[in-house]
């Protein structure tokens, strides 16, 4: 299998590269066709003049940031505490963090809408619900990254060292543990960010402004601007993944978002 094997390796690689790049190249070429007969960046400038694009995009970035903050505030103390004091909860916590894999996003939002659009919990219109929903969707990735990070440091010793120097829990968590696992947190955060930016289902059905529902609407209306928007969103996904790779070499968990 020496020589023949190598030819096949190249064959599969080239096929993979074609599959990966052809749609992107096509989208890029398409985005340049807005002016008849010549290639131009007209679609991009039209897009940036569109106030609903700016609105959807900036809201998505806002949702992304809020999701990361809520995620860190909930999952870091939990993962830390499970490791340090209550390992008997590990199975239960891990089971819950993996539930979003079992419950498809569309079913999840179905449950959210039906549950929170009637008393006693009438919060379906609140942005709080959207951020909470995104936090749930990003939970498998966020929690896993944080837990992997905690595994690589000596939680027990760091905590005891902090305590013997008179640090409180807040200081220990946010000034000792958090900085020590910042690479793991960052990789989880950027992955969550990429997921939230491209996420369609939650924003659409909870009727909040966001990038993906705007893009879906734009596809119905125009031909070239959605191509430009797709390229921008792809560049953003790429940037997030690039940053994760840069920071967290060897980290696991960069797998799949909501499709």
């Amino acid at each position: 299998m020496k020589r023949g094997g190598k030819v096949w390796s190249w064959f599969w690689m080239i096929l993979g590269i074609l599959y990966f790049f052809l749609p992107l190249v096509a989208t890029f070429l398409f985005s340049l066709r807005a002016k008849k007969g010549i290639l131009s960046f007209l679609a991009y400038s039209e897009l940036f003049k569109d106030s609903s694009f700016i609105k959807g995009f900036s809201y998505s970035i806002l949702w992304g940031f809020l999701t990361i903050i809520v995620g860190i505030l909930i999952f870091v103390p939990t993962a830390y505490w499970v490791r340090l004091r209550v390992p008997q909860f590990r199975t239960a916590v891990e089971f819950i963090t993996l539930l979003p894999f079992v419950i498809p996003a569309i079913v999840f939002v179905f449950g959210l809408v039906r549950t929170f659009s009637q008393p006693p919990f009438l919060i379906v219109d609140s942005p709080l619900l959207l951020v909470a929903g995104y936090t749930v969707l990003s939970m498998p990735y966020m929690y896993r990254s944080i837990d992997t990070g905690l595994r690589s440091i000596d939680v027990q010793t760091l905590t005891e060292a902090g305590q013997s120097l008179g640090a409180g829990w807040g200081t220990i968590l946010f000034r000792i543990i958090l900085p020590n696992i910042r690479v793991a947190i960052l990789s989880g955060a950027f992955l969550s960010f990429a997921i939230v930016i491209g996420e369609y289902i939650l924003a659409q059905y909870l009727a909040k402004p966001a990038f993906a529902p705007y893009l879906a609407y734009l596809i119905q209306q125009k031909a070239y601007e959605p191509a430009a928007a797709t390229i921008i969103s792809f560049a953003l996904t790429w940037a997030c993944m690039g940053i994760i790779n840069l920071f967290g070499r060897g980290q696991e968990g960069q797998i799949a978002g909501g499709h």
Partner: protein
Amino acid sequence: MNTINSVKRGAPKARPVLPKISWAWLGVMPFFLFALIFLLYPSSNLALRSFQDTNTHAFTLGNFVHLLQNPGLINAYWTSIKISLVTSVGGGIFGFFLAYSAIRGGLPRFMRTSLMTFCGVASNFAGIPLAFAFIALLSPSGVLTGWLMALGYNPYFHGFQLYTFWGLSMVYMYFQFPLMVLVIAPAIDGLRREWLEAAENLGASTFQYWRYVALPILLPSILGTMILLFGNSFGAFATAQALTGGSINLVTIRIGAQLRGDVLGDAGLGYALAFGMVFVMAAAIIGYTSLQRQSERWLR
């Protein structure tokens, strides 16, 4: 949980000790509370309602009976399962060859790192933008369609359709095979070179090496990951919605329609539809974890 210290026996004179309760479990309560409110309660609410009569709220299996009697909905499950089978097996095989080529195929080292990065991006590049990328590529006015037409071949004259089953399968493959590469890579890494050398020294052919050594070891991982891929496409909604405008009959599309308004005319049926989906997904995940556990025997 040894939270309570029992009073020592055989020490009658001792002062009664107040039971000492550990409050450590309180630390994980914010998490459980969050999960309860925003994940467990809404989901169990859905499950509960699928077993409830819409009007009387009494327990019933009627919703599932109606589901089984509804050919349109059965067809939706069937289409969803078919597309998931096609793209998990297809994406699984392609992804495996790709990963094996990059890791053990004798290609330059940088190919492996770039493949992993590409796959990280591609498996996260899904939903609406992905659908549009394929519209730009292969719709009747798409770029590749244009190139093919310039060569005198119009795929649309030969039965090709982007907005139907096979078109959508092609689009799904874009996030399926990269996921396969990412998940299967550690298993291929675990395949020891000594095994190949030992097999060769004993005079095994390439076919025999694969048939009797590599494949039996890798098979649980490959099948397990394919099941993961199955779930990945079974739950997909946004891509299909954007590409076909909801014209393809998938379970997720039907649930999306039901969510916008009770198009089934039977709320309970909608809940049963959603619950059935979770059931299939749970079966897939259980299959994945048990196969994964099996493969850990060899690959460590």
